[in-house]
Every structure is written in C-alpha cells, then in structure tokens.
C-alpha cells in the first residue's frame, strides 16, 4: 500500500532547479532509500515533504488523499517526522525538554514534568535506547544526540520517518546500531525514508531505492536487483572509478610536526597530540566530528596556542608565530567551513584571492596602497589556471557555486607554492566533479614532494587519499592504521576502544 506519494514536485532557488518534477512513491512499512551525490536534491525533496520548504510546483498525497504541508507543524500533524543532517537540538535545554518541545504535557499552566518523563520512558523502552533525560542536550556526544532526535520524532507520533544523512556523524559501530534501531522501527510498522550518498548503507538497510541526479529522479528499483556499480552510475551519470592509484612517495624529511601538544578549553582539549608529516606524503586524520579535529586544525594554523607542546615546521619551532607568519613561511590551509572561515561571500573573486596577501609586495606598493593592476592580473591568471567558472574577477563570491568557491580557496592557498597544506573536510558539500578535482589537487601536492595533513570525517575519503591514517578520539590520537586496514578497526578506534577489543 502506497502511504506517501509525490507528483511533479519542483523547487527552485533563484536560477537553480533543486528538484525538477520529481515523482515518488513510498510503500507503507518499507525502508525507502533516497540516493544521490551532494547537491542532487535529496535534502531539498525531503524538506519539501516536511514543510520546511514550499515547493514551487507539485502535489503530495498521503494514503491517497492530497495534503498541503505548509510548515513542519502540518507535517507533524500528518504523522511525518524528520531527523536532520545538522542536529536541531536546543543545547541549553534538557534532553526531555528537547523531546517534548512543542507538544508539552501540561498541568494547569505548568509543564507536567512527571507525565513528560513517563511518556518518554515508555518510548525509551520501545526503542531500546538508554538516555539521561536530565542532561543538557548540548553536552551529549553526537551519536547520542541523534537518538534524542529520533525520540523527538517518535514522541509526536510519527508513522513516517525521514532520516537525512544520519550516518555522517557516526562511527561504523554506531552505524550498525542505527541500522538495528531502524529495523526495529520497521517491525513496528513505521515507514522510513533513508537519505544517503553512501551505497553501502543503502544496501544494508533499504528495501527499495530512488536515485536522484541534478534534481531529477533517475529511477526507483528494489535494492535486491541492484549492484553498486549500477547505482553509482545512476548517481553520477557516467562510469565511476572508485580507486586511486596508491603511490608511495614519502621521503625521510619531516616537513611538519606536532610535538606533545596539549590545549585547554574552550573546545575539546587536546591531550598529548604528536604527529609527523613527511615530504611527499598525505597524512590523514580520521574520526567522528567533535573529537578535537577543529581544535587540532586551529593549533596547526596558529589560531590556538597550545598549553604545552610545540608546532614545528621544517625543523623550526613556529609555536609562537601567528597565522600570518605561518602563511608567509609556506603553510597553507583549506578550512573546514568555507563560508565561515574560507571566503568572504560579499567580496569579489579578486578580493578573495587577495585575502591574506594584501600586506605583501607585489600586491602592496608603497607603504599602504594596493596595486590593483597586479591584483587583477593575478586573479585572471588564477581563474584560468584553475578553471574557475565566474562571469569576471569582480563577481561577488556568493554567486559562484560551492565547487568554484572551493577552487578560489585552493587557488589562493596554493598560489605561492606552499610546502605544507592542511585540508579540513575539503570536499564537503561538493558534487562529484568538484570532489574529484580537489582530490587530484591534493595528490598533485603530494607528488610535488610536499606534505598534506588531511582532516576528514568522511572515512572513505581519508582511506582513499592518505598514505597513513591517525584516528582521533576525545582529543587524543587513538592510534595509527594503514589506509587498507579493515573498516571495523577504524571503527574501534573512532569509538574509543583499543584495537584488540572485539
């Protein structure tokens, strides 16, 4: 029995058509996968179903009756619940408050805490979760926060659950637990829409899968009759190669080193972190987000001073040198969240390429003035060199696509032949073409005999690109593995267990 149906759903953002006349049928009690690469439109589609976005065209049917979903309030009332990619808990409210928010049991004017607890505990039993309801939601580890999100959805009586890329923040073991939970919910008769770009999970979990590409639906098929190659081609539209050639180019020379670094809060405190990046090597740092990777990056860049320990570049102690000095010495940084840390959206392409170099000749002439002719030529050259798609060098950066914005960042960082590159989540939010391009760049840096420190929560990416991999857990280096090591070994370290534990 078809429980949810979508016909001709279209959603535009300015000129971009995020969803292009999509038809979808979801059967009751199935786990239906929604597969596509970054930017294919999966999140947009589910947001339309959940009332976060208003579709420009199209109709939605629930059990055969047409429904109008203008806001999450409507969706919830209809029994649709959504667990988002970026967790939507209120950090300073308690777990139980987050769960009952919007449907608080009342006694007179007050919130009936006793009844709230009772109802939530009933749900805990049904799902098999174990939670401390009185803790502040912001203090929980991310994997646990996700469980709170699932409870939120169940508390409102959702029969249809939409999960948007839920495994991005989980270790392999936690993914297994999630899969088990979802099977349990399916057994209770719930319908699940599972959004992902990871083939492995689709195969492990889903009954049927719908593939989206560039906003259009490519097809729907039962998972049992699909192969990974088939789905990958549907996602990308051409043959996809999964493997990069593995070249061993590392030299003896240590380009960059962290030596017994400790840091204090705010943020995750780093404990005795040591690592070495050799010339001609990509050192990867894997781990679930929130285990100190951001803090580590800040220490490397110079935005955070370690309480103890040293930062060493080409044999010299640069711990006391601020970011500017490190940039000038040849350390480059592709930051994690490019809109916040990498680029200035209101500045032009030209100005973004200049960012950080403005105090140096040849861009500075005289004591204070800028040489605009030089700046313009530099910008044009880089636009050509990196094939950056933009109307001109004066276009504000917000009008460029994500991939091109990242190209601007990369062009800038590599402009003066740095010897060391720190890349943080470099391909996040990029489509396959941009992702491939970026990975080629990083491999190119390695081939030139320079060093790359790659921090990524995407385990596949880390394993594909790195020569060696360190795993971070709670501010420490939990261990080192070869990229060819088994995924479950990674999972153990990422989950804080030692390698010999089963």
């Amino acid at each position, binding site marked *: 029995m078809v429980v949810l149906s979508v016909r001709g759903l279209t959603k535009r*953002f300015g000129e971009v058509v995020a969803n292009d006349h999509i038809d979808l049928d979801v059967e009751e009690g199935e786990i239906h996968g929604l597969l596509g690469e970054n930017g294919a439109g999966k999140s947009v589609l589910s947001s339309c179903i959940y009332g976060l976005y208003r579709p420009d065209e199209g109709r939605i049917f629930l059990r055969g009756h047409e429904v109008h979903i203008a*806001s999450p309030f409507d969706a919830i009332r209809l029994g649709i619940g959504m667990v988002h990619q*970026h967790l939507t808990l209120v*950090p300073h*409210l308690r777990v139980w408050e987050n769960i009952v*928010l919007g449907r608080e049991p009342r006694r007179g004017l*007050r*919130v009936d805490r006793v009844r709230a607890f009772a109802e939530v505990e009933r749900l805990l039993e049904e799902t098999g979760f174990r939670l401390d309801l009185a803790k502040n939601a912001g203090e929980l580890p991310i994997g646990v926060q996700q469980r709170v999100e699932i409870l939120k959805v169940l508390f409102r009586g959702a029969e249809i659950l939409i999960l948007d890329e839920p495994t991005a923040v989980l270790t392999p073991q936690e993914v297994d637990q999630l899969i088990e939970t979802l099977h349990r919910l399916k057994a209770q008769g719930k319908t699940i829409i599972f959004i992902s770009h990871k083939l492995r999970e689709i195969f492990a979990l889903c009954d049927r899968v719908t593939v989206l590409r560039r906003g259009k639906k490519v097809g729907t098929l039962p998972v049992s009759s699909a192969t990974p190659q088939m789905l990958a081609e549907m996602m990308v539209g051409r043959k996809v190669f999964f493997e990069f050639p593995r070249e061993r180019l590392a030299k003896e020379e240590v380009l960059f080193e962290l030596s017994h670094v400790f840091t204090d809060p705010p943020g995750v405190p780093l404990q005795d972190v040591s690592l070495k990046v050799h010339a001609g090597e990509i050192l990867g740092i894997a781990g679930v987000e929130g285990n100190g990777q951001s803090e580590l990056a800040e220490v490397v860049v110079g935005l955070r001073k370690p309480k103890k320990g040293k930062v060493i570049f080409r044999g010299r102690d640069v711990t006391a040198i601020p970011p500017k000095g490190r940039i000038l010495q040849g350390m480059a940084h592709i930051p994690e969240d490019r809109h916040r840390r990498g680029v200035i959206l209101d500045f032009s392409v030209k100005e973004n390429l200049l960012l950080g170099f403005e105090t140096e000749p040849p861009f500075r002439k005289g004591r204070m003035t800028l040489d605009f002719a030089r700046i313009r030529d530099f910008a044009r050259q880089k636009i050509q060199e990196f094939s950056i798609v933009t109307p001109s060098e004066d276009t504000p950066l917000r009008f460029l696509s994500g991939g091109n914005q990242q190209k601007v960042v990369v062009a800038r960082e590599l402009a003066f032949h740095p010897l060391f590159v720190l890349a943080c989540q470099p391909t996040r939010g990029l489509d396959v073409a941009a992702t491939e391009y970026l990975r080629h760049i990083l491999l190119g840096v390695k081939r030139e005999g320079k060093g790359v420190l790659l921090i990524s929560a995407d385990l596949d990416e880390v394993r594909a690109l790195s020569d060696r991999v360190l795993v971070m857990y709670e501010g420490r280096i939990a261990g080192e593995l070869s990229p060819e090591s088994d995924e479950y070994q990674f999972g153990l370290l990422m989950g804080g267990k030692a390698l010999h534990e089963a």
Partner: protein
Amino acid sequence: MSLSQIINLSLFQAQLRMATPILFAALGGLLCERVGVVNIGLEGIMLTSAFFGVLVTYFTSSPLLGFLGGLASGFLWGLVIAVLTVRFFGNQIVVGTGVNVFGLGLSAFLSQKIWGSRGASEAVSGFAPLRSDLLARLPYLGPVLNEHTFLVYLAIALVFVLHFFLFSTPWGLRLRAVGENPQAADTAGINVFRYKTLGVVAGSLVASLGGVFLSLGHLNFFAWGMTSGRGFIGLAAMIFGKWTPLGCLLSSLLFGFADALQMRLQALGVLPSQIILLIPYLVTILVLSGFVGRAVPPARYEPYRKE
C-alpha cells in the same frame, strides 16, 4: 556633613524607587533578547510611554487612563519593532536607534504643541503611594519597602511572574528555544515568527511600564529626555543579571543605588551636579567591562529566514 546624611533608610527607599524603571527596562529587554532580538530601542519606548502617560492624564485627569495610554504606546512600538525586525529582517540595532530618535522627536514636538514648551509639560496628578501598616512595623526593611507607588511592587512581582513563565510553562520553554535555536524550534513545529513577535511585543510592553513610572509614578510631569539613558542601563543590568529575571532584579538594585546616590549627593550640593550625574553611567561601564567577558547571551541575534 556626616555620612549618615548620605546613607540612611530614605536612601534605600530611593534606591528601590530608582531601580524600578531600570528593572522594567531590563525585564523588557530580557524578553526580547530571549527570542533573539536586541532591543536597543528600549530608551525610545520608555520615553514615548512616559510622554503619553502624562499626555493622556493631562487630557483625562485620570492617571489610570494615562497608565493605559503609556502601555498602549509600548504595545504599538513592540508591534512596529517586531514587524521591522522579524517580518522584514531589519537590522535590529538600526531599528532601535530609529525608535530612540523618534521618541525624542515626537515627545518634544507634541510637547511644544500642547504645552508650548519642548522642555517640560505641566504637572499632572500621579499615582498615590501605597501604604501598608504591616510593612510599617517591620524594622529596617519596612520603611524601605513601604509607601511606594503600585508600579514598584508590580516590578518586583513581575520578576517572579517572568521567572515562572520562562522556566516552568510550555510557552516559556518554546520562547527560549526560539531564541537559542530557531531551526530546532521550527522543525519541532513551533511558529518561530509568532513567538519572536510575542517576545518583542511583551518586552516592549514591560519596558513601557518603566517609562510610565518615570513620569506618572515619580515626577508627575514629563521632561524632555527624562529617561536619560535608563533604557541602555537596563540592557546593561540584563547582561549583568545573566539574562534571568532574578539576575535583573539584583543588578537593577545596584544601578538603582547608583542613581539614588547621585540624586542624594546633588540634593546635598556636595559636588557640581554634572559630576554627580556621571555616576550611574560610569557604574554601567565598570559593570560591563568587569564582567561581560564571560557572559554568553542565550540567543542568536539574527533574523530567522525560512526558505
């Protein structure tokens, strides 16, 4: 001149009186900030309600109607600010500045028209102080707490009402969620715009009580610019009070003390008035610099845009 001329029970009584408008401003600002709107325009709201309180009383000879008139102006301002900042995504600080300038301009303009002087209005009847025999018998605290206009007691009561509202009721819970993480509230099905508007309007209403107090509850006439920065001091009190109603009460008492002290010293002619008038402002700056480094506001101050 002895110290007891300066520090005595009537000083503390004055402290409570002078704390009242600051407390109203702080509580009003609190409601706005808890939904993520920085209300810089508290000053203008208070000035407008002080003016309209006197204006309506002048024409109706009823302080009660004047009180309602002042509240009405606060309500209207709340709507205007809410519409501009929440519905039309206006810059909160710019809107607040506009409110302040408007308050100054309108009050002077109408004052000139009606009383022929932009500086001060005529005197009107104000509120009578309330007297309780029970309180009068309490040692020390009694005289301090007794014989205030009802607005003072209202302010104190409001502290507890707001505390209950924010931390024990579902609407308070939702309000706090809306301010701290509007996306979370939205996906939980809460109407973010509605709660933000509610918070701003309620906050402006509460702040306008402070304005009405200044004119009707204290001096019984309107003088140009009589709020003298209390809207801003209220914001400082709110920050110092860590965005909680009880905290607002305590910090308002501190600022009220500075204000009362300043008035006492002026009356005694100890120093030139301009120097003494500096005291509350310097205290505010000290408070903000000594403390705020560690304070984290509870909400995000951006307009919330749905796609």
